[in-house]
């Protein structure tokens, strides 16, 4: 896959992988040995017919390929770019045992991008109107999947989005250089063409309550509101100017386009020496964004070691190529500021790895007396996101667990409240786009069963 040179790409927000040409795609597709029992499909959370679409690419029927993907995955342009394929389809590919797996993600992306440019695929068919209305709360990957599935099954679907633009984490969280927003908006426009009613600026739990949705005639409600509560470190100095959550940093940059300030009005602190706490995909996004905003130094500070880094392999690789430095086995003690309340440094502490904790990962143990100072004028806290309580606090009868995540059955998405389903990060905690989509698919099937066949809740 051709990629923008690291020295060039840190100066812009253009996409890094530039996409396969049709010739390159066909060549790669020929590598697939069309296994009779495809392990790749088992690795896919939504069971895309991978050998099937790859065969169609090989035969140069690119439109056929996208239609085959669409049977299972409504957002292939997104997934091809952001799925951790190394842990899913490509991780299971038999060719990967001795050499490189088939580049399934790149092929999925190719098929989706080809269709978006050529627009040759027929519109998906929509079943006869059932006369029933479904409300989808949240227009991120889970919500969009539910909307897409149910509009095609003949339901009237309204999507309620709190922000002024749809897409959820696809638009506020993932940077432009990993997922161009034009792609997300194009997908959403496609859903609107099928009849989905998108209501932005609608905060369910404030503008309208969940119970009021039932009063308004919706027969079922799906909650895909995501894990939008920033986790802070709770160390001294965290409220200094220059310390912010990754959610804030990325929302300013990606949704509000602060990287185009002053053409866009929202400002962002453009640190010269930037530290990002954490090592997940969000941390990589933050650290790489900092470089593009002109940082001289962009550091990842992580309390465990390289082996435990949770980010997608491609993102760590891209970050390193671009010059992000990694400080492993280091934790934060406090942030230090000047007399104007601005961050000037972070005091860190070395860590050693001890016994595994509840998550199964080895617990970081502070090394006494190992404090040291890291100069910085911007510190981005990217250590996870919890459950935003805005909706759950204003809704009766919706059972949550001790951390505020909504309790939902894994095989149906049903919550404790009649007529209400949930899926994605608000149920599982921060996870991936594809897992949210998988949960959306399961919930949509269950909603359809409830509304069309009168299955009990």
């Amino acid at each position, binding site marked *: 896959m051709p990629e923008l040179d690291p020295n060039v790409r840190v100066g812009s927000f253009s996409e890094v992988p530039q996409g396969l040409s049709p010739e390159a795609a066909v060549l790669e597709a020929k590598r697939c040995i069309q296994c009779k029992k495809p392990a790749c499909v088992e690795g896919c959370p939504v069971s895309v017919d991978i050998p099937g679409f790859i065969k169609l690419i090989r035969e140069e029927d690119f439109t056929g390929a996208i239609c085959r993907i669409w049977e299972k995955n409504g957002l292939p342009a997104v997934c091809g770019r952001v799925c951790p394929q190394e842990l899913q389809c490509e991780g299971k590919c038999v060719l990967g045992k001795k050499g490189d797996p088939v580049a399934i993600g790149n092929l999925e992306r190719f098929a989706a991008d080809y269709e978006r440019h050529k627009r040759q695929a027929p519109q998906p068919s929509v079943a006869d109107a059932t006369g029933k209305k479904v409300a989808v709360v949240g227009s991120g990957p889970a919500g969009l999947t539910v909307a897409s599935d149910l509009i095609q099954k003949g339901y009237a679907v309204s999507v309620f989005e709190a922000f002024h633009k749809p897409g959820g984490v696809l638009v506020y969280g993932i940077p432009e250089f990993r997922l161009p927003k034009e792609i997300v908006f194009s997908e959403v426009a496609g859903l609107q063409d099928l009849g989905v009613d998108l209501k932005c600026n609608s905060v369910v739990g*404030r503008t309208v309550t969940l119970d009021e949705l039932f009063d308004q005639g919706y027969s079922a409600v799906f909650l895909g509101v995501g894990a*939008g509560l920033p986790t802070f470190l709770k160390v001294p100095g965290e409220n200094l100017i*220059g310390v912010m959550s990754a959610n*804030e940093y990325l*929302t300013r940059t990606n949704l509000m386009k602060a990287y185009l*300030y002053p053409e866009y*009005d*929202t*400002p962002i602190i453009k640190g010269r020496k930037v530290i990002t706490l954490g090592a997940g995909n969000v941390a990589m996004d933050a650290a790489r964004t900092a470089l593009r905003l002109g940082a001289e130094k962009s550091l990842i500070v992580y309390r465990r070691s390289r082996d435990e880094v949770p980010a997608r392999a491609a993102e760590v690789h891209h970050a390193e190529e671009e010059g992000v430095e990694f400080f492993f086995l280091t934790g934060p003690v406090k942030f230090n500021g000047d007399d104007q309340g601005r961050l000037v440094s972070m005091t860190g502490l070395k860590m050693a790895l001890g016994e595994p904790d509840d998550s199964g990962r080895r617990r970081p143990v502070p090394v006494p007396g190992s404090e040291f100072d890291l100069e910085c004028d911007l510190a981005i806290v990217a250590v996870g996101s919890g459950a935003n*309580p805005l909706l759950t606090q204003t809704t009766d009868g919706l059972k949550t667990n001790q951390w505020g995540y909504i309790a939902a059955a894994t095989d149906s998405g049903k919550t404790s409240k009649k007529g209400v389903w949930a899926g994605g990060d608000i149920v599982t905690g921060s996870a991936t786009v594809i897992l949210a989509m998988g949960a959306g698919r399961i919930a949509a099937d269950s909603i359809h069963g409830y509304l069309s066949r009168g299955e009990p809740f």
Partner: protein
Amino acid sequence: MFEIVRREEMSQGHVILNEIRAPLIARKARPGQFVILKANETGERIPLTMADTNPDLGTITVIYMVVGKSTLLFKGLKEGEGYQDVIGPLGRPTHLEKVGTVVCVGGGTGVAVLHPITRALKEKGNHVISIIGARSKDLIILEKEMAQASHEQLLCTDDGTYGEKGFVTDVLESVMAAHEVKLVVAIGPVPMMKAVCEKTRKSHIKTMVSLNPIMIDGTGMCGGCRVSVGGETRFACVDGPEFDGHLVDFDELMLRLRSYAADEKKSYENQLCRLDDEPDPVKNIVAEE
């Protein structure tokens, strides 16, 4: 588009009133809640507490002082034009209770936020005394409305051009001496709210303030609006915007409000350059608020 159905200029064009058509918000909003507004595609999201709502007409009213690029941009919106995005109602509504004698203290455009709360406290059966203060006569707003919403009204200006010469804290002191005050609600520039809280601290009079940190989303997902209350971190957009003033770290809030001061100044000056007929900006507003 959220249409502006009525527009008024006050304080020689420094303070603007917009009555905006937003029926869903108007129906739901309670005193103390705010909205987030965005003028156009490139605009910022900024919070403004609602000064009034009319559920029958389906409108909400905001009153803002022109202090920077976004408020200057808003000022340029005429009746019939409108905001691209208005989100709300956000924040927790004011806790309203009948407690006895209540003093509502408003500074500058804080009076716009104070007005619906004052009215609601009066409707609850409290004896309401309101104190409105501003730098000078032309910055006093909503005098008649506040008078209607209170049983007694006292006015003061820093320069003595209207009402008593002095600060709201001076007037408050005399009110506290003459009445058994059960609750003080103080809304205005941060130094004013801080000063009022210092006045009432020794007498242990419960004092509620409405905080105005920088916000982006307004729904609790970014933490940009975090404030320290009683040593704990709270998000003004979902836990507030009202808090017990005696527990608020005002100094930290004042520091954090300056996070983007340099960018704000530049943006404001560039926007002013684009417009010919703007009056001189009220000095030092950005530094203070």
